[in-house]
């Protein structure tokens, strides 16, 4: 079978279990696909073909010996390069970590590989996950498989491009303000940001710790659920991971939305949202209503405050998290040695890109004496209001349906000179991070050959309802079977 790279994880696991294919065949199919499309997509910073073949061979050995197989046995995995992988270079898309080899593996990654997934590479991203286009990577931009003149979105753009192009079957991204959902939307795949605390952040190199979450990026809703089944749950190495039982998310994927109460927040369909995007999302809502859901318009008036709120809180946390890059413990060190103070400043100037410096500066300013109350504390208070507004909405609705991004993928270079325009790309995804609630983006159509994403939000720890709504919609369409013209 030559199309193994194009199958879903659910299909591959079944083919492996019934011994119709070997893990090595799946690895070879995926690696051949990478060779064919990587020159045009550049989804990866580091490819790990030898390791993939080695891990696949180990799975085949288990099969030959009749040993039990994990739920992801034989599934090729792409990892955003902010996730620590023992023995594999991890760069964060930055010049400051050109050759960092982590001595340990992130819990989320370890759970997937322990379940039989094998890593094919580390994917490109905006430097330290700061950006919406993957153009802020020190390793060059990735390209959108649907139109290689366009960005794949960001910051998890490399994983999104890899999954859309068939460069891997499942992938991990991280989402601090939309960095899983927005690139999933731009590349026509499924991307979930779980509830804050649902997935361990141990081994995720921090950007903004109170907002960061690791999540699955896949071609189908069921595959995302399968990854979540393995990855979610308490980890004593992350004290913010929540000790709640993990439901069976695959079982939650069933086509039944009868009585599902859908809220449609009007602020997510207003100014700045491309009308063609709005109408595709409204068509998706109508489809769910035809299947028995009930939709009603609602209002979340603080939505407009989420963007400024985020651009205080996230940089403030980043300025503290990124203080660790000082040229002493790991990473780049300047060759122009001055005293110790000069070493730090010069190393950071050489190592960080413009956008990272910008966010460190904003965060340092917002936390500095005299401005703390006006900026940081006020932003945290507005964050409370945003959270309460969601709480109230989920008293009335099971899910909220919105566009994921105001537009389809933009052209490479189009917004790189306008940092504010770039930041507005995340206006519809940021509120969920501030409130800590789960959200998914799934494909709901195309405009001029570029995918559009439908965002489904639910109350904290109710990923099951998201999976049910997402699966029901997906199964009533064939968007998830469309493939980019590569």
């Amino acid at each position, binding site marked *: 079978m030559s199309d193994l790279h194009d199958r879903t994880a659910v299909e591959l696991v079944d083919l492996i279990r019934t011994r119709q294919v070997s893990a090595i065949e799946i690895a070879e199919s995926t690696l051949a696909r990478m060779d064919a499309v990587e020159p045009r997509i550049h989804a990866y910073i580091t490819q790990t073909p030898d390791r993939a073949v080695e891990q696949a061979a180990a799975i085949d050995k288990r099969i030959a010996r009749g040993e039990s197989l994990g739920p992801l046995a034989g599934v090729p995995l792409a990892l955003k390069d902010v996730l620590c992988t023992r023995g594999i270079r991890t760069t964060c898309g930055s010049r400051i970590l050109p050759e960092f080899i982590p001595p340990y593996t992130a819990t989320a990654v370890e759970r997937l590989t322990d379940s039989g997934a094998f890593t094919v590479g580390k994917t490109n991203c905006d430097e330290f996950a700061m950006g919406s286009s993957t153009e802020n990577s020190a390793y060059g931009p990735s390209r959108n498989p649907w139109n290689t003149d366009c960005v794949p979105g960001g910051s998890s753009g490399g994983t999104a491009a890899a999954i859309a192009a068939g460069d891997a079957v499942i992938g991990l991204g991280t989402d601090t303000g939309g960095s899983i959902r927005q690139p999933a939307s731009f590349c026509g795949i499924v991307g979930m940001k779980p509830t804050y605390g649902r997935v361990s952040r141990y081994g995720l190199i921090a950007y903004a710790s109170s907002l960061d979450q690791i999540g699955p990026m896949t071609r189908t809703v069921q595959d995302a659920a399968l990854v979540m089944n393995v990855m979610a749950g308490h980890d004593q190495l992350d004290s913010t991971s929540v000790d709640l039982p993990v439901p069976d998310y695959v079982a939650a994927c069933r086509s039944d939305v009868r009585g599902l109460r859908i809220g449609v927040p009007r602020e997510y369909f207003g100014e700045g949202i491309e009308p063609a995007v709005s109408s595709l999302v409204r068509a998706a809502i109508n489809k769910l209503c035809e299947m028995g859901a009930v939709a009603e318009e609602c209002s979340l008036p603080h939505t407009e405050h989420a963007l400024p709120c985020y651009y205080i809180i996230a940089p403030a946390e980043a300025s503290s998290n990124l203080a660790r890059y000082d*040229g*002493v413990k790991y990473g780049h060190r300047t060759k122009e040695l001055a005293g110790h103070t000069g070493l730090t400043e010069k190393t950071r100037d050489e190592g960080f890109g413009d956008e990272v410096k910008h966010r460190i500066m904003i965060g340092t300013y917002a936390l500095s004496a005299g401005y703390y109350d006006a900026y940081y504390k006020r932003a945290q208070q507005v964050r409370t209001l945003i959270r309460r507004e969601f709480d109230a909405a989920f008293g009335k609705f099971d899910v909220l349906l919105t566009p994921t991004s105001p537009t389809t993928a933009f052209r490479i270079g189009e917004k790189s000179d306008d940092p504010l325009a770039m930041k507005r790309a995340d206006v519809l995804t940021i509120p969920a991070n501030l409130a800590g609630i789960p959200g998914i983006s799934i494909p709901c159509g195309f405009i001029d050959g570029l995918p559009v994403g439908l965002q489904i939000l639910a109350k904290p720890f109710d990923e099951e309802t998201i999976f049910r709504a997402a699966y029901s919609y997906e199964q009533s369409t064939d968007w998830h079977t469309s493939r980019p013209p590569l």
Partner: protein
Amino acid sequence: MTLSAEEVRKVALLARLELDDDEIERQTRHINDLIARFEALQEVDVTGIEPTSHSVPLVNILREDVVKPSLSRDEVLANAPESRDGCFIVPRIVEGAG
């Protein structure tokens, strides 16, 4: 409210970033663009509203004070730009010593 290039230089000092004049000019422009957006938050009535630092309530997690396996010193030092005798090496800070 806008920041002057001089104030931005002070922030860069706090942030331990050595920025040249071009970068200071660029950062000043970007920071002021963003601060203008922050003004919208000043209009929100936050009287009596508790700040949210994490979306889930955090509690202290305690464990028994027992020794567990951890990274070896060699593993920890393996990524350092310079190390010697089990230590991170930094440039000389005090002139004339040693």
